[in-house]
């Protein structure tokens, strides 16, 4: 089985995981604003303990977002750098899919709405159905206002992740369709390793320079000169 190193820095959590022969070790820490200092020492420690060099791995996986812009760029940069230098393929993994898998494991649920707080009164979200032990996305990942969240259908859903902090602002249908949300479910490198192993077997590794963050929120926050003038009038 493939040897895969996974990194995630998309939230306040910073995690590194290593899969060798299907066995996964994980170093998971909640360390707001300390990711840049600790990420590579964590990688180095884990590889050293396993007696491996980066070049002996088969692929690098990373949490490609959505999440904190600065955060997902740290994991992207580190993954790009490691993979480029060691000539390894990269496997970008969705942070929302990682939350779904963590929720399924911890709470034994199989229909999950994964979310992250996108700030500015919005959330990132996606609906997942567990199939053969893995989360399958039923819709596209989106960033949206709480009020515009629509669930795929009316059955019960498990509400996972920090985006549910906006529950009170969601529609009555959504509030009825979910139980009490569990906010403290994070994306983590351990489950990303599992998702990456599957993707690796399907041949989904890409070259380092193609490994890019998925922000979901694009240019809306910045005004072009033409728009700035309109605003000033």
């Amino acid at each position: 089985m493939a040897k895969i190193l996974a990194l995630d820095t998309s939230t306040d959590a910073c995690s590194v995981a290593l899969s060798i022969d299907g066995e996964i070790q994980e170093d998971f820490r909640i360390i707001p604003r300390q990711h840049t200092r600790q990420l590579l020492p964590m990688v180095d420690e884990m590889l050293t303990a396993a007696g491996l060099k980066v070049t002996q791995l088969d692929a690098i996986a990373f949490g490609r977002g959505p999440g904190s812009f600065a955060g997902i760029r740290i994991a992207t940069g580190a993954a790009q750098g490691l993979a480029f230098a060691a000539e390894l393929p990269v496997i970008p993994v969705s942070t929302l899919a990682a939350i779904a898998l963590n929720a399924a494991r911890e709470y034994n649920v199989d229909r999950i709405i994964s979310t992250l707080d996108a700030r500015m009164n919005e959330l990132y979200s996606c609906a997942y159905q567990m199939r053969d032990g893995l989360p399958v996305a039923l819709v596209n990942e989106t960033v949206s206002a709480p009020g515009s969240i629509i669930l795929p259908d009316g059955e019960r859903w498990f509400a996972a992740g920090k985006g549910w902090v906006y529950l009170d602002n969601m529609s009555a249908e959504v509030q009825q369709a979910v139980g009490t949300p569990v906010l403290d479910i994070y994306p983590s490198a351990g489950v990303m390793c599992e998702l990456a192993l599957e993707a690796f077997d399907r041949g989904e590794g890409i070259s380092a320079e193609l490994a890019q963050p998925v922000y979901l929120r694009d240019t809306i926050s910045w005004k072009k000169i033409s728009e700035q003038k309109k605003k000033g009038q």
Partner: protein
Amino acid sequence: MRVLGIETSCDETGVAIYDSEAGLLGDALYSQVAVHAEYGGVVPELASRDHVRKLLPLVKEVLQQADMQADAIDAVAYTAGPGLIGALMVGASTGRAMALAWGVPAIGVHHMEGHLLAPMLEEHPPAFPFVALLVSGGHTQLVQVDGIGEYTLLGESLDDAAGEAFDKAAKMIGLNYPGGPEVARLAEQGDRSRFRFPRPMTDRPGLDFSFSGLKTFTLNTSNDLRVDGVLAEKDRCDIAAAFEDAVVDTLAIKCRRALQQTGFKQLIIAGGVSANQRLRERLEEMVKKERAALFYARPRFCTDNGAMIAYAGCQRLMAGQSSDLSIQCQPRWPMDTLEPITKG
């Protein structure tokens, strides 16, 4: 020692390979100017995003230029500040991780030290000690340089940087961002005797600068000349000429004072504004009278680039310095807090 240099502190992605024996082996640059022009200034988030897309393709490009396999790199140098924190982090995290995978040392480089040492990449480099004028969109500083890492700040701008003043003056006369280089182009066609703009802070001792008053003067002059809100082409050129002369004169006066104060006979100019032709000519005249010499980098290495980071990093690495595995960037980083390197 072969060093891969990475620069991502603002809106240019620069990568280069510098070899301590063979010199510069590869150098590639991607400018985001067009991305930010639509917004009238650098949008930090967009700059960071663009660096992530462009960095590795540029690394590949310089390896090809150097006709070199990646494992021939002995160390990685990346800009660790000052600059936009999100942009810096892209180069730092990618560069630091590459060094880890290659099993080679890495070092975080001070962006302005990179600029300051850029003239060392030229055929006739200056020797220490010298006076350095760092002039860019973010800095206007006079520095006494006794060696690498031995910097004494002699004076700096109390408000706008000279390059920033150029960009703002450009906007006032109807040029798009970033208009600094355009101002110089218009000035060439202007009548330099029509207006005389103030030379701020030259009437008193000291080596500090201030460009905000000059900016206001430029605004008032251009407003007075507007007819139905429109500035005639000739007026724009004449204002550009008067503005450029005022900045250039001010810089030259302070540089002369700095040479006299230190007794040094070498002046280097670095940073984006050091590519300004009028400034170079004016300083050449000045240093001749002072029996001193002027040094500057080729225009490509005046603006942000990877070569200067590779060079500066190489000097520090050869002196035994390096950064650990933590990726640390400092958006603000006073240059006089840098460590000297032991010579030899």
